[in-house]
């Protein structure tokens, strides 16, 4: 018995860009003169009860809003405005609820362990986003949260696909969320993550200083085994690996990944990579194309959303938009020319040459 196909029937995005669902693709990208991109408020009041908004950390608001945007995009909103619950919720986050964690930690240190209140501690838990979505949707199903750096979203995808392929669930809401705070930005600046001189974000790939630009966001997808009018793309597979020894190993793994999914390198019309403007990181992607996909055009996405552990979820959204509209906007291209007819997109992201991941997504 062949595995069922996994369809992406909707997506919801909260990001630094003014686009929130699959139907908003392609959009007019916004450039920022900063090394720290922040998400655009999608109008949280529409998605979260007013009395809850005030207490929620930003990542929770982003997560809940993008999850509901996704359900709306996938046709899960009912006539009375409420949402039909999916069967399962699987999320990924690299650093979790940083704002609440810092808030509790700071007041604990500053007040010498006295006069503390529980709200920020409660919300600091890494599965708060998945838990709050379940609470608001009254979703009693499977609820998992993966927290493995640049594998967080990929692990969530793998789990969601495993649910569908094993038939334990037919529809899974899955996503990735991360927020950046003043403290985390400063700490990562000290670690040398960010460019020193401020740049225009849309010119990220023309800048050759060391480092990249910080970002954040939340992207959710409704995965299902059921093909319908709203099916935007087919999610074929995902794989992750640590510390490859050479670019040849990456190419070998990339070819093997495609081969296992009965796809050949020359069937890939576009590769979306995690190029981030840091020469050391970007050379890994260019070598991968040079050695294994020399004629294939490459698009980037981190000039739109910045670098963060679950940024690849934003890339999956871009890929979904491209496959469903068959439009590759020129402002996505990093290398080669825009392909016209797109059947298969390979997403390749790595973090500091440590965590590497491939996602294959195909036309319905």
């Amino acid at each position, binding site marked *: 018995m062949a595995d069922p196909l996994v369809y992406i029937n909707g997506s919801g995005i909260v990001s630094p860009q003014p686009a929130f669902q699959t139907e908003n693709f392609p959009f007019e990208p916004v450039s920022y003169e900063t090394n720290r991109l922040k998400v655009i408020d999608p109008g949280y009041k529409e998605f979260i009860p007013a009395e809850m908004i005030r207490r929620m950390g930003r990542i929770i608001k982003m997560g809940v809003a993008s999850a509901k945007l996704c359900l709306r995009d996938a046709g899960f909103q009912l006539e009375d405005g409420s949402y039909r619950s999916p069967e399962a919720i699987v999320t990924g986050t690299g650093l*979790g609820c940083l704002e609440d964690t810092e808030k509790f930690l700071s007041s604990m240190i500053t007040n010498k*362990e006295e006069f503390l209140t529980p709200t920020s501690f*409660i919300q600091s838990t*890494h599965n708060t986003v998945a838990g709050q979505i379940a609470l608001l949707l009254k979703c009693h199903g499977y609820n998992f949260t*993966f*927290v*493995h750096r640049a594998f967080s979203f990929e692990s969530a995808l793998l789990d969601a696909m495993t649910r569908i392929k*094993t038939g334990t669930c037919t529809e899974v809401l899955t996503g990735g969320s991360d927020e950046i705070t003043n*403290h985390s930005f400063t700490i990562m600046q000290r670690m040398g993550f960010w460019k020193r001189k401020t740049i225009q974000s849309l010119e990220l790939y023309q800048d050759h200083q060391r480092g990249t630009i910080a970002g954040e966001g939340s992207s959710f997808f409704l995965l299902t085994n059921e093909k319908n009018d709203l099916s935007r793309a087919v999610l074929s597979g995902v794989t992750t690996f640590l510390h490859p020894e050479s670019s040849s190993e990456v190419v070998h793994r990339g070819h093997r990944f495609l081969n296992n999914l009965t796809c050949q390198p020359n069937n890939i019309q576009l590769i979306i990579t995690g190029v981030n403007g840091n020469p050391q990181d970007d050379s890994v992607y260019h070598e991968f194309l040079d050695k294994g996909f020399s004629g294939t055009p490459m698009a980037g996405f981190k000039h739109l959303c910045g670098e963060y552990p679950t940024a690849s979820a934003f890339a999956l959204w871009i890929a979904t938009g491209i496959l469903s509209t068959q439009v590759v906007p020129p402002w996505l291209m990093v290398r080669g020319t825009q392909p016209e007819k797109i059947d298969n997109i390979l997403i390749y992201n790595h973090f500091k040459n440590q965590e590497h991941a491939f996602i294959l997504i195909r036309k319905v």
Partner: protein
Amino acid sequence: MPERVFITGIGIVCAIGNNVGEVLNSLMAERSGIGAITLFPTLHQGTLPMAEVKMSNQELASDLGFSTPKAYTRTALLGMKAAREAIRSSGITDMKAFRTGLIGATTVGGMDRSENFYASFLTDPSKGKLADVVNHDCASGTEQIAAYLNIPDFITTISTACSSSVNAIMFGSDLIRTGQLDRVIVGGHDAVTRFTLNGFNTLMILDRSGCHPFDENRAGLTLGEGAAYLVLESEETVAAARKKVLAEVTGYGNANDAYHQTASSPDGKGAFLAMTKALSMSGLAPSEISYINVHGTGTQNNDLSEGLAIERIFGENVPPFSSTKAFTGHTLGAAGAIEAIISVLSLLHEVIFPNLNFSIPMKELKIRPVSRLMTRIKLQHVLSNSFGFGGNNSSVILSRLENTDIQ
């Protein structure tokens, strides 16, 4: 899915022992690991008890063959120690012989070091040693375990509060059942930190006299720390190596209470659903469960809602049950794996470990936990529960099998 999942190795470090043998001895001797706080200075020293691992970071590092603990958080050191024991006990020598993965779990990752960093950082953002914060994230400990033990093929980390490491067992089992991995080392690790101690203290759910699970006068939980890892293998790799199997993972389920971010629903809906799913997957009737290792934190809320859910499923025939948290403390991200290993020990040694500190049954429940060690009791199927914040409820069923079952 015909693939079966077997446990071939276990490793543990917690307040009642630094390895499986020591833990078993403490359990048999009914010796709790709860005591005074010694690991870090805190306002709560002398008033709140804790279940600490009885090894310093330096002792853990030396045990693992490092000259200093500097590059590691306590969380990671505990994880490496337990995972190493699990792999040794499974007899795995060649990590690359089969597709082998690692699934870790934690709630606060490297918070034990981040606390030190923040104390300096808050006074001046250019201060604080980056080495104290670089391993803050939840994945760091898992990656250090993978590097230490050369686990090659797959890695991830789960964080779903106090059910984290049962969820690691579930996800690992699914990867084997679907043929995505042949072997997977699954479990969790969490060190005690001032962050969690103060966090739970603000919720007013820490028992000043040590936890009393399922007792009418229970007054909260007691925090603990530790790590536990299990080696899960497919039928094929077990058969190939003619391995001794400790137990089989026969069922599991995760469900969400969807009631409140921290509190359990009064009727224990999530707990009921998780246990029901696990039973349904295993194909067992409730009457076939021989023992339940309950989540039993000792909070008013958990024990009542878990107890009611158990009564709803098992009716008049609730099997013997106990919470072992009065031995180990509540080890958060490690709890599910620690209790799975305690359940394996129950199956192997034909004993039910007692629910310490129990004296008065809860007035809302008809049931009462096993409060004395029960020996020579043949157990076939053990159910273990772990519930967490975010309404995250998980149950796993571990079953005993004769060696002749697998050839």
